[in-house]
C-alpha cells in the first residue's frame, strides 16, 4: 500500500499461489542464510524487482534509507560483538574481530534484502490475493482480516462526521483549552465506540440472516489457473528442488564464529547458486519476455 504498481510489471499478474511461493522462498533464504553469494543474488534480484515495480521511487528509497541502515548495522556489530578468533585492532581495549566484521556485513545485507523484499511483497501481494489464498483454508480468520480492513476507512469517515457534528456545539478537539480538548477527544472516541459496537451487532444479525456459518457456501474469486501459471509453477518447483538439494548437501553453509567458514564454490555448488539465481530473477525474466514480445509485436504491426 505504500507504493503502487505502475502497471509495467507482468509477473504480478500471475496466479497468487506462484507469487506467494516466490516471496516465501526469497524471504526465507535471505532471512536465514548468510552465504555471501546467496545474499548477493537475493539482494540484486529484489533490488531489480523493486525498481521494476516502482521505478525511480524505489531507487531513491533504497539509496536514501537502505544504504545508511546497511552501514549502521555493518559498523555497529563489530563494536558490540567481540566473539571471534581473529583480532584486527583494539578500540578502547575492546577487540574488533574479523569474524564479527564479516558477520556485520552479511547480516546487514540480509536485513536490507528482507526489507526490500517485503516492500515488493506489499505491492504485489494485495489483500485480495491473500484473502484468496487463505479463504478456503481458514475461512473465518480470512473473513475477519478482510472485515477489519474494510472497517478502518469506514470508522475514519464516521469519526469525521462525529467531529463535525461536535464542532457545531463547540465540542471538537480544536476548541477550548488543553484539558477541554482532551475531554472532547475522549468524548468523540466514545461516541465512535458506541456507534461501532451497535453497528457491529446489526451487521452480525444481517450476516446471520444471510446464512453465515452454514455449509455449502461458495466464494467468488477472479483468479484462475492458466497454462502460464502451470508452467511457472513447474519451473519454480524444479528450481526449488535443486536449491533444496544444495541446502541438504551443505552448499550454502556459512558460519562466522569462532572462525569464518564459508562453503566454497565448486562445479556442483555453482549449479545450486545458478538455480537460486534463476528462481530469484523469475520476475525480471517474465517482465523482460513480456517487454520483448510487446515490442516485437509493435514493430511487426
Amino acid at each position: 500500500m505504500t507504493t503502487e504498481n505502475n502497471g509495467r510489471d507482468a509477473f504480478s499478474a500471475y496466479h497468487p499461489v506462484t507469487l506467494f511461493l516466490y516471496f516465501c522462498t526469497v524471504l526465507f533464504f535471505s532471512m536465514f542464510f548468510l552465504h555471501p553469494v546467496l545474499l548477493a543474488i537475493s539482494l540484486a534480484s529484489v533490488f531489480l524487482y523493486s525498481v521494476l515495480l516502482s521505478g525511480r521511487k524505489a531507487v531513491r528509497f533504497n539509496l536514501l534509507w537502505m544504504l545508511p541502515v546497511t552501514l549502521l548495522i555493518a559498523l555497529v556489530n563489530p563494536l558490540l560483538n567481540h566473539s571471534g578468533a581473529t583480532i584486527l585492532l583494539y578500540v578502547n581495549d575492546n577487540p574488533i574481530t574479523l569474524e564479527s566484521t564479516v558477520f556485520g556485513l552479511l547480516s546487514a545485507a540480509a536485513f536490507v534484502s528482507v526489507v526490500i523484499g517485503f516492500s515488493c511483497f506489499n505491492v504485489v501481494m494485495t489483500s485480495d490475493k491473500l484473502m484468496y489464498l487463505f479463504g478456503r483454508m481458514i475461512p473465518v480468520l480470512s473473513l475477519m482480516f478482510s472485515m477489519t480492513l474494510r472497517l478502518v476507512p469506514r470508522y475514519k469517515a464516521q469519526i469525521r462526521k462525529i467531529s463535525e457534528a461536535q464542532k457545531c456545539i463547540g465540542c471538537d478537539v480544536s476548541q477550548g483549552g488543553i484539558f477541554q480538548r482532551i475531554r472532547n477527544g475522549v468524548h468523540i472516541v466514545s461516541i465512535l465506540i458506541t456507534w461501532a459496537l451497535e453497528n457491529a451487532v446489526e451487521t452480525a444479525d444481517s450476516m446471520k440472516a444471510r446464512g453465515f456459518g452454514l455449509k455449502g457456501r461458495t466464494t467468488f474469486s477472479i483468479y484462475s489457473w492458466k497454462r502460464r501459471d502451470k508452467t511457472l509453477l513447474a519451473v519454480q518447483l524444479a528450481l526449488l528442488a535443486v536449491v533444496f538439494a544444495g541446502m541438504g548437501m551443505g552448499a550454502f553453509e556459512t558460519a562466522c564464529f569462532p572462525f569464518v567458514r564459508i562453503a566454497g564454490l565448486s562445479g556442483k555448488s555453482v549449479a545450486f547458486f545458478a538455480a537460486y539465481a534463476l528462481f530469484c530473477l523469475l520476475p525480471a525474466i517474465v517482465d523482460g519476455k513480456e517487454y520483448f514480445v510487446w515490442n516485437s509485436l509493435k514493430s511487426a504491426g
Partner: protein
Amino acid sequence: MSKKPDRRLIFSVVLIFLAIPLTIAFGMSVLHDRRYYFVSVAILIYTMLPFLLSFEHRRPKAREVILICSLSAISVIGRAAFFMIPEFKPVAAIVIIAGICLGPESGFLVGALSGFVSNFFFGQGAWTPWQMFSFGIIGFLAGFLHQRGILNENRAVLCVFGGLSTFVIYGGLMNLSSALTVSPGFGQDVFWATFLAGIPFDLVHAASTVIFLLFIAKPMTERLIRIRVKYGLMEDKDSSAQ
C-alpha cells in the same frame, strides 16, 4: 463437544513434541549463525497456531466475529491517528480492554489481528509475527488475569498492568527480535545494547498505553459491557456451543 478439546490437544502435542524439535534440529544443522533467529520465529508462529485454529474450528458466531473485528479496526485507526509520534500507539490499551471485557481468547485475537492488519497500512516486515504475538499475548494475559480475579476494572490497576506489560512483554520481545536480526546468538553485549537503545521507545510506548488506558478504559469498558448485556454476547457460550 468432547471431541474438540482432544483434537486441539493432539495438535498442540504434535507441535510441541514434533514440530519444535524438528525445527530446532533443522536450525542447528543447516543454519549456523541464524539458528536462534529462525527457531524463535518458528516457535512464535507455532504458539499462535493453536489459538487461531481452535477459534476457526469452534465455528464462532457472527456477533463474536464482528465484535473482534470492530475492536481491531478501532485500534488500527488509533495507531494511524498517532503515527507521527513513534511508538505512541493505543493498540495495547485497546487490546487489554478487549481481553478484560470479552475474555482471553478474544483478547488474543484482537491483538494478533490488529498487529497484522495495521501492518497493511504501515508495511509488513520481519517484525509482523513478533508484533502479532506480543499484542496477542498481552490481550490474553489481561483476560486471563481478569478471569482469575487479579486484574479488575480499577483504573490504577489497569494502568500499572498496561504500562508493565507493554514495557516488558512488547518491548522485551521486540528488542529480542531486533537483537536476533543483527547478532548471531545470545551474546550478552548485543542484548544489553539493543535493550538500552530500545528503552526510550519502550518507555514512550508504555507511557502511551498508560495514558490511553487512563482516558478510554472507563468509557470503553462501560460501552462494551453495555453492549454485552444488551445483546447477551459471549455469555451464552456454553448453551449455544452444541
